Protein backbone atom coordinates (compact mmCIF):
# COMPACT_ATOMS: atom_id res chain seq x y z
CA UNK A 1 0.00 0.00 0.00
CA UNK A 2 1.60 3.23 -1.13
CA UNK A 3 0.07 5.53 1.48
CA UNK A 4 2.60 7.02 3.84
CA UNK A 5 0.31 8.15 6.64
CA UNK A 6 0.56 6.03 9.84
CA UNK A 7 -1.87 3.18 10.27
CA UNK A 8 -4.65 3.33 12.83
CA UNK A 9 -5.49 -0.36 12.42
CA UNK A 10 -3.02 -3.10 11.50
CA UNK A 11 -3.85 -6.74 10.94
CA UNK A 12 -0.97 -9.19 10.90
CA UNK A 13 -1.02 -12.89 9.95
CA UNK A 14 -4.59 -13.18 11.23
CA UNK A 15 -6.22 -16.60 11.41
CA UNK A 16 -9.76 -17.14 12.60
CA UNK A 17 -11.96 -20.23 12.63
CA UNK A 18 -15.32 -21.36 13.98
CA UNK A 19 -14.31 -24.75 15.37
CA UNK A 20 -12.73 -26.73 12.55
CA UNK A 21 -14.10 -24.33 9.86
CA UNK A 22 -11.47 -21.79 8.83
CA UNK A 23 -12.90 -18.32 8.13
CA UNK A 24 -9.80 -16.14 7.75
CA UNK A 25 -6.26 -17.27 7.07
CA UNK A 26 -3.04 -15.29 7.01
CA UNK A 27 -4.66 -11.88 6.66
CA UNK A 28 -2.44 -8.80 6.51
CA UNK A 29 -4.19 -5.46 6.20
CA UNK A 30 -3.40 -1.81 6.93
CA UNK A 31 -5.92 0.94 7.58
CA UNK A 32 -4.19 4.33 7.44
CA UNK A 33 -5.45 7.24 9.53
CA UNK A 34 -7.90 9.57 7.84
CA UNK A 35 -8.63 7.24 4.94
CA UNK A 36 -11.70 5.36 3.79
CA UNK A 37 -10.66 1.76 3.20
CA UNK A 38 -13.11 -0.71 1.72
CA UNK A 39 -13.14 -4.45 2.26
CA UNK A 40 -15.01 -6.12 -0.58
CA UNK A 41 -15.89 -9.68 -1.34
CA UNK A 42 -18.78 -12.02 -1.86
CA UNK A 43 -21.14 -13.21 0.84
CA UNK A 44 -19.41 -15.48 3.33
CA UNK A 45 -15.92 -14.29 2.41
CA UNK A 46 -15.23 -13.17 6.00
CA UNK A 47 -15.68 -9.39 5.65
CA UNK A 48 -17.91 -8.90 8.70
CA UNK A 49 -15.67 -11.23 10.71
CA UNK A 50 -12.81 -8.79 10.08
CA UNK A 51 -14.89 -5.98 11.63
CA UNK A 52 -15.82 -8.12 14.63
CA UNK A 53 -12.16 -8.98 15.19
CA UNK A 54 -11.21 -5.30 15.05
CA UNK A 55 -13.97 -4.51 17.55
CA UNK A 56 -12.84 -7.33 19.86
CA UNK A 57 -16.15 -9.21 19.62
CA UNK A 58 -14.23 -12.24 18.35
CA UNK A 59 -10.78 -13.52 19.30
CA UNK A 60 -8.33 -14.65 16.62
CA UNK A 61 -6.93 -18.17 16.57
CA UNK A 62 -3.52 -16.64 15.84
CA UNK A 63 -2.07 -13.39 14.58
CA UNK A 64 -3.05 -9.95 15.79
CA UNK A 65 -5.25 -6.93 15.25
CA UNK A 66 -3.92 -3.67 16.64
CA UNK A 67 -5.92 -0.47 16.96
CA UNK A 68 -3.96 2.67 17.73
CA UNK A 69 -1.03 0.51 18.84
CA UNK A 70 -3.08 -1.71 21.20
CA UNK A 71 -3.35 -5.43 20.46
CA UNK A 72 -7.11 -5.92 20.70
CA UNK A 73 -7.27 -9.52 21.92
CA UNK A 74 -4.76 -8.83 24.71
CA UNK A 75 -6.95 -6.15 26.30
CA UNK A 76 -8.93 -7.03 29.41
CA UNK A 77 -12.68 -6.41 29.49
CA UNK A 78 -12.41 -2.90 30.96
CA UNK A 79 -9.71 -1.84 28.46
CA UNK A 80 -11.69 -3.34 25.59
CA UNK A 81 -14.81 -1.34 26.47
CA UNK A 82 -12.61 1.74 26.87
CA UNK A 83 -11.16 1.20 23.40
CA UNK A 84 -14.60 0.68 21.87
CA UNK A 85 -15.58 4.16 23.03
CA UNK A 86 -13.14 5.48 20.42
CA UNK A 87 -14.91 3.47 17.70
CA UNK A 88 -18.24 3.77 15.97
CA UNK A 89 -19.95 0.98 14.12
CA UNK A 90 -22.83 1.02 11.70
CA UNK A 91 -24.52 -2.37 11.63
CA UNK A 92 -26.03 -3.86 8.49
CA UNK A 93 -29.60 -3.32 9.65
CA UNK A 94 -28.91 -0.29 11.82
CA UNK A 95 -29.42 -2.12 15.14
CA UNK A 96 -31.35 0.84 16.51
CA UNK A 97 -32.98 0.44 19.91
CA UNK A 98 -36.59 -0.03 18.90
CA UNK A 99 -38.05 1.32 22.14
CA UNK A 100 -36.18 4.63 21.83
CA UNK A 101 -36.76 7.60 19.53
CA UNK A 102 -34.15 8.65 16.96
CA UNK A 103 -33.05 11.36 19.41
CA UNK A 104 -32.65 8.94 22.31
CA UNK A 105 -30.82 6.42 20.10
CA UNK A 106 -28.21 9.03 19.21
CA UNK A 107 -28.09 10.30 22.79
CA UNK A 108 -27.55 6.77 24.15
CA UNK A 109 -23.74 6.57 23.81
CA UNK A 110 -23.39 10.14 25.10
CA UNK A 111 -25.54 9.45 28.16
CA UNK A 112 -23.81 6.15 28.87
CA UNK A 113 -20.21 7.16 28.31
CA UNK A 114 -20.02 10.82 29.31
CA UNK A 115 -21.08 13.05 32.19
CA UNK A 116 -22.24 15.82 29.90
CA UNK A 117 -25.28 17.83 31.05
CA UNK A 118 -28.55 17.05 29.31
CA UNK A 119 -28.68 20.48 27.60
CA UNK A 120 -25.32 19.87 25.93
CA UNK A 121 -26.31 16.31 24.97
CA UNK A 122 -29.43 17.75 23.35
CA UNK A 123 -27.39 20.17 21.24
CA UNK A 124 -24.87 17.48 20.27
CA UNK A 125 -27.59 15.03 19.28
CA UNK A 126 -29.40 17.62 17.17
CA UNK A 127 -26.11 18.48 15.43
CA UNK A 128 -25.43 14.82 14.66
CA UNK A 129 -28.98 14.33 13.38
CA UNK A 130 -28.62 17.52 11.34
CA UNK A 131 -25.44 16.11 9.80
CA UNK A 132 -27.41 13.13 8.48
CA UNK A 133 -30.40 15.27 7.50
CA UNK A 134 -32.80 13.95 10.13
CA UNK A 135 -32.95 16.70 12.77
CA UNK A 136 -36.68 17.04 12.18
CA UNK A 137 -37.21 13.29 12.63
CA UNK A 138 -35.69 13.36 16.13
CA UNK A 139 -38.94 12.40 17.86
CA UNK A 140 -39.75 9.47 15.60
CA UNK A 141 -39.18 5.87 16.63
CA UNK A 142 -37.40 3.36 14.36
CA UNK A 143 -40.73 1.79 13.37
CA UNK A 144 -41.91 5.18 12.08
CA UNK A 145 -39.03 5.82 9.66
CA UNK A 146 -37.85 4.11 6.48
CA UNK A 147 -34.92 1.67 6.31
CA UNK A 148 -32.68 4.29 4.69
CA UNK A 149 -33.55 6.86 7.35
CA UNK A 150 -32.94 4.26 10.04
CA UNK A 151 -29.49 3.64 8.61
CA UNK A 152 -28.79 7.38 8.78
CA UNK A 153 -29.95 7.56 12.40
CA UNK A 154 -27.63 4.64 13.14
CA UNK A 155 -24.85 6.55 11.40
CA UNK A 156 -25.55 9.60 13.58
CA UNK A 157 -25.37 7.32 16.62
CA UNK A 158 -22.11 5.75 15.41
CA UNK A 159 -20.46 9.19 15.20
CA UNK A 160 -22.00 10.53 18.42
CA UNK A 161 -18.73 10.29 20.34
CA UNK A 162 -16.62 11.61 17.41
CA UNK A 163 -14.80 8.27 17.04
CA UNK A 164 -11.36 7.96 15.54
CA UNK A 165 -12.46 4.77 13.76
CA UNK A 166 -15.82 4.20 12.08
CA UNK A 167 -16.73 0.74 10.79
CA UNK A 168 -19.54 0.22 8.33
CA UNK A 169 -21.04 -3.23 7.84
CA UNK A 170 -22.87 -3.33 4.49
CA UNK A 171 -24.12 0.27 4.74
CA UNK A 172 -25.73 0.17 1.27
CA UNK A 173 -27.57 -3.14 1.58
CA UNK A 174 -31.28 -2.85 0.80
CA UNK A 175 -31.22 0.90 0.06
CA UNK A 176 -32.78 2.60 -2.94
CA UNK A 177 -30.36 4.43 -5.30
CA UNK A 178 -31.04 7.85 -3.77
CA UNK A 179 -30.47 6.64 -0.21
CA UNK A 180 -27.39 4.77 -1.40
CA UNK A 181 -25.87 7.91 -2.88
CA UNK A 182 -26.78 9.95 0.20
CA UNK A 183 -25.23 7.34 2.52
CA UNK A 184 -22.06 7.09 0.42
CA UNK A 185 -21.57 10.86 0.48
CA UNK A 186 -22.24 10.96 4.21
CA UNK A 187 -19.59 8.32 4.85
CA UNK A 188 -16.97 10.26 2.91
CA UNK A 189 -17.94 13.69 4.25
CA UNK A 190 -18.19 12.58 7.87
CA UNK A 191 -14.84 10.82 7.62
CA UNK A 192 -13.20 13.99 6.35
CA UNK A 193 -15.03 16.32 8.73
CA UNK A 194 -14.24 14.24 11.83
CA UNK A 195 -10.72 13.32 10.71
CA UNK A 196 -11.62 9.69 11.35
CA UNK A 197 -10.59 6.48 9.68
CA UNK A 198 -13.36 4.50 8.02
CA UNK A 199 -13.54 0.81 7.22
CA UNK A 200 -16.24 0.02 4.75
CA UNK A 201 -17.39 -3.58 4.36
CA UNK A 202 -19.54 -3.83 1.28
CA UNK A 203 -20.14 -5.50 -2.04
CA UNK A 204 -21.58 -2.44 -3.79
CA UNK A 205 -18.87 -1.64 -6.33
CA UNK A 206 -20.18 1.67 -7.69
CA UNK A 207 -20.76 3.49 -4.38
CA UNK A 208 -17.70 2.00 -2.78
CA UNK A 209 -15.31 2.93 -5.58
CA UNK A 210 -16.69 6.47 -5.58
CA UNK A 211 -15.66 7.16 -1.98
CA UNK A 212 -12.90 4.70 -0.99
CA UNK A 213 -9.19 5.56 -0.96
CA UNK A 214 -8.13 1.93 -0.99
CA UNK A 215 -9.90 -1.37 -1.58
CA UNK A 216 -9.11 -4.87 -0.36
CA UNK A 217 -10.69 -7.86 -2.08
CA UNK A 218 -11.36 -10.81 0.19
CA UNK A 219 -12.22 -14.28 -1.01
CA UNK A 220 -12.50 -17.45 1.06
CA UNK A 221 -10.82 -15.75 4.01
CA UNK A 222 -7.78 -14.50 2.09
CA UNK A 223 -6.80 -11.15 0.56
CA UNK A 224 -6.76 -11.77 -3.18
CA UNK A 225 -6.17 -8.20 -4.35
CA UNK A 226 -5.77 -4.66 -3.07
CA UNK A 227 -5.30 -1.18 -4.50
CA UNK A 228 -6.96 2.12 -5.27
CA UNK A 229 -10.38 1.99 -6.96
CA UNK A 230 -8.79 2.99 -10.29
CA UNK A 231 -6.24 0.20 -9.98
CA UNK A 232 -8.99 -2.27 -9.22
CA UNK A 233 -11.05 -1.14 -12.20
CA UNK A 234 -8.04 -1.74 -14.42
CA UNK A 235 -7.09 -5.00 -12.70
CA UNK A 236 -6.81 -8.18 -14.72
CA UNK A 237 -7.06 -10.38 -11.64
CA UNK A 238 -9.81 -12.92 -12.46
CA UNK A 239 -11.60 -12.53 -9.10
CA UNK A 240 -11.53 -8.72 -9.22
CA UNK A 241 -12.70 -8.77 -12.84
CA UNK A 242 -15.57 -11.11 -12.04
CA UNK A 243 -16.60 -9.06 -9.01
CA UNK A 244 -16.30 -5.58 -10.57
CA UNK A 245 -18.07 -6.63 -13.76
CA UNK A 246 -20.67 -8.73 -11.91
CA UNK A 247 -19.97 -11.81 -14.03
CA UNK A 248 -22.04 -14.84 -13.12
CA UNK A 249 -19.25 -17.37 -13.44
CA UNK A 250 -15.52 -17.21 -12.84
CA UNK A 251 -13.23 -17.97 -9.90
CA UNK A 252 -16.40 -17.82 -7.78
CA UNK A 253 -18.49 -20.58 -9.34
CA UNK A 254 -22.19 -20.09 -9.95
CA UNK A 255 -22.96 -23.63 -8.76
CA UNK A 256 -22.32 -24.74 -5.21
CA UNK A 257 -19.55 -27.38 -5.39
CA UNK A 258 -20.69 -31.00 -5.34
CA UNK A 259 -22.01 -33.70 -7.66
CA UNK A 260 -22.71 -32.87 -11.28
CA UNK A 261 -26.27 -32.49 -12.61
CA UNK A 262 -25.76 -35.65 -14.72
CA UNK A 263 -24.88 -37.62 -11.58
CA UNK A 264 -27.90 -36.28 -9.72
CA UNK A 265 -30.24 -37.16 -12.62
CA UNK A 266 -28.71 -40.62 -12.98
CA UNK A 267 -27.33 -39.82 -16.44
CA UNK A 268 -23.72 -40.55 -15.54
CA UNK A 269 -21.56 -43.38 -16.85
CA UNK A 270 -23.70 -46.43 -17.71
CA UNK A 271 -23.22 -49.44 -15.47
Amino acid sequence: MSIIVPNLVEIRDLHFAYGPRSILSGLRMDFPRGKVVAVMGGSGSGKTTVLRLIGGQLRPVSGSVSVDGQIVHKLNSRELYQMRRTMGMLFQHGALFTDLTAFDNVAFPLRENTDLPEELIRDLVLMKLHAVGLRNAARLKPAEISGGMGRRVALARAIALDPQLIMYDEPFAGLDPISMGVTANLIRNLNDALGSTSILVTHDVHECFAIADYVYFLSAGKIVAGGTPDEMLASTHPYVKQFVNAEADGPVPFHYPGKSLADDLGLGVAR
Partner: protein
Amino acid sequence: MILDLLASIGIWLRHSVANLGFAVRAFLKILSASGSLLRRPRLVTEQLHFIGNRSLLIITVSGLFVGMVLGLQGYYTLNKYGSEQALGLLVALSLTRELGPVVTALLFAGRAGTSLTAEIGLMKAGEQLSAMEMMGVNPIHRVLAPRFWAGVIAMPILAAIFTAVGIIGGYLVGVQLIGVDEGAFWSQMQNGVDIWKDIANGVFKSVVFGIAVMFIALFQGYQAQPTPEDVAGATTRTVVISSLMIWWLDFMMTALMFSK
Protein backbone atom coordinates in the same frame (compact mmCIF):
# COMPACT_ATOMS: atom_id res chain seq x y z
CA MET B 1 -24.33 -50.50 20.46
CA ILE B 2 -23.10 -50.18 24.07
CA LEU B 3 -20.25 -47.95 22.91
CA ASP B 4 -22.74 -45.68 21.11
CA LEU B 5 -24.86 -45.47 24.24
CA LEU B 6 -21.83 -44.64 26.38
CA ALA B 7 -20.75 -42.02 23.84
CA SER B 8 -24.22 -40.44 23.90
CA ILE B 9 -24.21 -40.34 27.69
CA GLY B 10 -20.71 -38.85 27.62
CA ILE B 11 -21.73 -36.13 25.16
CA TRP B 12 -24.85 -35.34 27.20
CA LEU B 13 -22.80 -35.16 30.41
CA ARG B 14 -20.18 -32.95 28.80
CA HIS B 15 -22.83 -30.56 27.45
CA SER B 16 -24.64 -30.49 30.78
CA VAL B 17 -21.49 -29.68 32.73
CA ALA B 18 -20.45 -27.06 30.16
CA ASN B 19 -23.91 -25.43 30.27
CA LEU B 20 -23.92 -25.46 34.05
CA GLY B 21 -20.49 -23.85 34.14
CA PHE B 22 -21.62 -21.27 31.61
CA ALA B 23 -24.75 -20.51 33.64
CA VAL B 24 -22.77 -20.11 36.87
CA ARG B 25 -20.33 -17.77 35.12
CA ALA B 26 -23.21 -15.71 33.74
CA PHE B 27 -24.82 -15.54 37.19
CA LEU B 28 -21.56 -14.34 38.74
CA LYS B 29 -21.18 -11.76 35.98
CA ILE B 30 -24.64 -10.38 36.70
CA LEU B 31 -23.85 -10.23 40.41
CA SER B 32 -20.52 -8.53 39.81
CA ALA B 33 -22.22 -6.00 37.52
CA SER B 34 -24.72 -5.12 40.25
CA GLY B 35 -22.42 -2.69 42.08
CA SER B 36 -22.66 -0.18 39.25
CA LEU B 37 -26.43 -0.03 39.76
CA LEU B 38 -25.92 1.71 43.08
CA ARG B 39 -24.68 4.70 41.10
CA ARG B 40 -27.64 4.51 38.71
CA PRO B 41 -30.63 3.22 40.69
CA ARG B 42 -32.97 4.68 38.06
CA LEU B 43 -32.15 1.76 35.76
CA VAL B 44 -33.59 -0.62 38.37
CA THR B 45 -36.61 1.51 39.29
CA GLU B 46 -37.57 1.87 35.61
CA GLN B 47 -37.49 -1.90 35.18
CA LEU B 48 -39.26 -2.43 38.50
CA HIS B 49 -42.06 -0.28 37.15
CA PHE B 50 -42.27 -2.26 33.89
CA ILE B 51 -41.88 -5.74 35.39
CA GLY B 52 -44.15 -5.08 38.37
CA ASN B 53 -46.85 -3.46 36.26
CA ARG B 54 -46.77 -6.25 33.69
CA SER B 55 -47.59 -8.83 36.36
CA LEU B 56 -49.80 -6.87 38.74
CA LEU B 57 -53.19 -7.51 37.14
CA ILE B 58 -52.79 -11.27 36.71
CA ILE B 59 -51.33 -11.59 40.22
CA THR B 60 -54.20 -9.65 41.80
CA VAL B 61 -56.98 -11.47 39.95
CA SER B 62 -55.36 -14.88 40.53
CA GLY B 63 -54.80 -14.09 44.20
CA LEU B 64 -58.46 -13.16 44.62
CA PHE B 65 -59.72 -16.38 43.02
CA VAL B 66 -57.21 -18.62 44.81
CA GLY B 67 -58.30 -17.05 48.12
CA MET B 68 -61.99 -17.52 47.25
CA VAL B 69 -61.45 -21.17 46.32
CA LEU B 70 -59.44 -21.71 49.51
CA GLY B 71 -62.24 -20.14 51.54
CA LEU B 72 -64.81 -22.40 49.91
CA GLN B 73 -62.83 -25.65 50.06
CA GLY B 74 -61.51 -24.83 53.53
CA TYR B 75 -65.00 -24.24 54.81
CA TYR B 76 -66.33 -27.56 53.38
CA THR B 77 -63.47 -29.49 54.99
CA LEU B 78 -63.39 -27.68 58.34
CA ASN B 79 -67.17 -27.80 58.62
CA LYS B 80 -67.04 -31.63 58.73
CA TYR B 81 -65.09 -31.36 61.99
CA GLY B 82 -66.95 -28.34 63.34
CA SER B 83 -63.84 -26.19 63.03
CA GLU B 84 -64.98 -23.59 60.52
CA GLN B 85 -63.86 -20.88 62.98
CA ALA B 86 -60.29 -21.76 61.92
CA LEU B 87 -60.99 -20.82 58.30
CA GLY B 88 -59.06 -17.53 58.54
CA LEU B 89 -56.03 -19.36 59.91
CA LEU B 90 -56.18 -22.01 57.20
CA VAL B 91 -56.44 -19.42 54.41
CA ALA B 92 -53.67 -17.24 55.85
CA LEU B 93 -51.21 -20.09 56.51
CA SER B 94 -51.81 -21.66 53.10
CA LEU B 95 -51.20 -18.36 51.39
CA THR B 96 -48.25 -17.01 53.40
CA ARG B 97 -46.33 -20.27 53.58
CA GLU B 98 -46.96 -21.85 50.18
CA LEU B 99 -49.50 -20.57 47.71
CA GLY B 100 -48.50 -16.91 47.86
CA PRO B 101 -44.81 -17.37 46.96
CA VAL B 102 -45.26 -20.43 44.71
CA VAL B 103 -48.26 -19.37 42.60
CA THR B 104 -46.90 -15.82 42.30
CA ALA B 105 -43.56 -17.20 41.09
CA LEU B 106 -45.27 -19.46 38.53
CA LEU B 107 -47.39 -16.58 37.25
CA PHE B 108 -44.39 -14.26 37.31
CA ALA B 109 -42.38 -16.74 35.21
CA GLY B 110 -45.23 -17.00 32.73
CA ARG B 111 -45.90 -13.28 32.50
CA ALA B 112 -42.72 -11.28 33.15
CA GLY B 113 -40.17 -14.09 32.63
CA THR B 114 -41.25 -14.99 29.11
CA SER B 115 -41.56 -11.35 28.18
CA LEU B 116 -37.99 -10.68 29.34
CA THR B 117 -36.62 -13.73 27.52
CA ALA B 118 -38.29 -12.63 24.29
CA GLU B 119 -37.13 -9.03 24.76
CA ILE B 120 -33.47 -9.98 25.33
CA GLY B 121 -33.58 -12.63 22.57
CA LEU B 122 -34.98 -10.12 20.07
CA MET B 123 -32.47 -7.49 21.14
CA LYS B 124 -29.78 -10.04 20.38
CA ALA B 125 -31.35 -11.02 17.05
CA GLY B 126 -31.58 -7.34 16.07
CA GLU B 127 -27.88 -6.85 16.96
CA GLN B 128 -28.88 -4.31 19.61
CA LEU B 129 -26.71 -6.01 22.23
CA SER B 130 -23.77 -6.12 19.80
CA ALA B 131 -24.34 -2.44 19.01
CA MET B 132 -24.27 -1.68 22.72
CA GLU B 133 -20.99 -3.57 23.14
CA MET B 134 -19.49 -1.64 20.24
CA MET B 135 -20.52 1.64 21.89
CA GLY B 136 -18.45 0.64 24.90
CA VAL B 137 -21.52 -0.22 26.97
CA ASN B 138 -21.57 -3.64 28.60
CA PRO B 139 -25.05 -5.19 28.07
CA ILE B 140 -24.70 -7.24 31.25
CA HIS B 141 -24.37 -4.00 33.23
CA ARG B 142 -26.89 -2.00 31.23
CA VAL B 143 -29.56 -4.57 30.32
CA LEU B 144 -29.32 -7.77 32.36
CA ALA B 145 -28.36 -6.61 35.86
CA PRO B 146 -31.09 -3.92 36.20
CA ARG B 147 -33.77 -6.35 35.02
CA PHE B 148 -32.48 -9.08 37.33
CA TRP B 149 -32.62 -6.93 40.46
CA ALA B 150 -35.93 -5.36 39.47
CA GLY B 151 -37.43 -8.85 39.23
CA VAL B 152 -35.88 -9.96 42.52
CA ILE B 153 -37.37 -6.90 44.25
CA ALA B 154 -40.74 -7.23 42.47
CA MET B 155 -41.28 -10.90 43.40
CA PRO B 156 -41.80 -10.54 47.20
CA ILE B 157 -43.93 -7.42 46.64
CA LEU B 158 -46.13 -9.28 44.17
CA ALA B 159 -46.28 -12.32 46.48
CA ALA B 160 -47.37 -10.03 49.33
CA ILE B 161 -50.08 -8.53 47.12
CA PHE B 162 -51.18 -12.02 46.03
CA THR B 163 -51.38 -13.17 49.67
CA ALA B 164 -53.21 -10.06 50.87
CA VAL B 165 -55.74 -10.20 48.04
CA GLY B 166 -56.09 -13.97 48.60
CA ILE B 167 -56.97 -13.41 52.25
CA ILE B 168 -59.56 -10.86 51.19
CA GLY B 169 -60.95 -13.47 48.75
CA GLY B 170 -61.13 -16.04 51.55
CA TYR B 171 -62.86 -13.45 53.76
CA LEU B 172 -65.43 -12.57 51.09
CA VAL B 173 -66.40 -16.19 50.55
CA GLY B 174 -66.02 -17.47 54.12
CA VAL B 175 -67.43 -14.54 56.09
CA GLN B 176 -69.56 -12.53 53.69
CA LEU B 177 -70.99 -15.36 51.57
CA ILE B 178 -71.09 -18.41 53.86
CA GLY B 179 -71.40 -16.63 57.18
CA VAL B 180 -68.36 -17.75 59.21
CA ASP B 181 -67.97 -15.56 62.27
CA GLU B 182 -65.93 -12.51 61.31
CA GLY B 183 -64.26 -12.11 64.72
CA ALA B 184 -63.17 -15.75 64.75
CA PHE B 185 -61.90 -15.47 61.16
CA TRP B 186 -59.53 -12.59 61.96
CA SER B 187 -58.61 -13.46 65.56
CA GLN B 188 -57.65 -17.07 64.73
CA MET B 189 -55.50 -15.71 61.92
CA GLN B 190 -53.87 -13.15 64.23
CA ASN B 191 -53.11 -15.75 66.89
CA GLY B 192 -51.95 -18.51 64.57
CA VAL B 193 -49.74 -16.74 62.07
CA ASP B 194 -46.16 -16.26 63.22
CA ILE B 195 -44.31 -13.31 61.77
CA TRP B 196 -40.99 -15.17 61.46
CA LYS B 197 -41.97 -18.77 60.91
CA ASP B 198 -44.75 -18.05 58.43
CA ILE B 199 -44.44 -14.58 56.96
CA ALA B 200 -40.63 -14.16 56.92
CA ASN B 201 -40.17 -17.67 55.53
CA GLY B 202 -42.72 -16.91 52.83
CA VAL B 203 -40.92 -13.68 51.94
CA PHE B 204 -37.60 -15.54 51.88
CA LYS B 205 -39.07 -18.14 49.55
CA SER B 206 -40.37 -15.49 47.18
CA VAL B 207 -36.97 -13.78 47.05
CA VAL B 208 -35.31 -17.11 46.18
CA PHE B 209 -37.96 -17.77 43.51
CA GLY B 210 -37.40 -14.27 42.17
CA ILE B 211 -33.66 -14.90 41.82
CA ALA B 212 -34.30 -18.25 40.08
CA VAL B 213 -36.99 -17.01 37.68
CA MET B 214 -35.17 -13.83 36.71
CA PHE B 215 -31.85 -15.56 36.13
CA ILE B 216 -33.44 -18.33 34.05
CA ALA B 217 -35.41 -15.80 31.97
CA LEU B 218 -32.44 -13.53 31.32
CA PHE B 219 -29.99 -16.38 30.71
CA GLN B 220 -32.33 -18.06 28.22
CA GLY B 221 -32.78 -14.80 26.33
CA TYR B 222 -29.09 -13.97 26.34
CA GLN B 223 -28.11 -17.48 25.24
CA ALA B 224 -30.72 -17.77 22.50
CA GLN B 225 -29.49 -18.04 18.94
CA PRO B 226 -30.61 -14.99 16.94
CA THR B 227 -33.32 -16.88 15.04
CA PRO B 228 -37.12 -16.79 15.45
CA GLU B 229 -37.17 -20.54 16.26
CA ASP B 230 -34.61 -20.29 19.03
CA VAL B 231 -36.09 -17.15 20.58
CA ALA B 232 -39.46 -18.95 20.67
CA GLY B 233 -37.76 -22.04 22.11
CA ALA B 234 -35.97 -19.95 24.74
CA THR B 235 -39.31 -18.45 25.82
CA THR B 236 -40.76 -21.93 26.27
CA ARG B 237 -37.67 -23.10 28.13
CA THR B 238 -38.03 -20.17 30.53
CA VAL B 239 -41.49 -21.35 31.60
CA VAL B 240 -40.59 -25.05 31.79
CA ILE B 241 -37.27 -24.67 33.62
CA SER B 242 -38.58 -21.93 35.94
CA SER B 243 -41.65 -23.98 36.90
CA LEU B 244 -39.62 -27.10 37.66
CA MET B 245 -37.05 -25.05 39.55
CA ILE B 246 -39.78 -23.35 41.62
CA TRP B 247 -41.30 -26.70 42.66
CA TRP B 248 -37.90 -28.18 43.50
CA LEU B 249 -36.76 -25.12 45.46
CA ASP B 250 -40.10 -24.98 47.26
CA PHE B 251 -39.81 -28.58 48.40
CA MET B 252 -36.22 -28.10 49.56
CA MET B 253 -36.96 -24.86 51.43
CA THR B 254 -40.14 -26.22 53.00
CA ALA B 255 -38.26 -29.28 54.21
CA LEU B 256 -35.57 -27.08 55.75
CA MET B 257 -37.84 -24.37 57.18
CA PHE B 258 -40.66 -26.38 58.70
CA SER B 259 -38.93 -29.57 59.79
CA LYS B 260 -38.92 -30.13 63.56
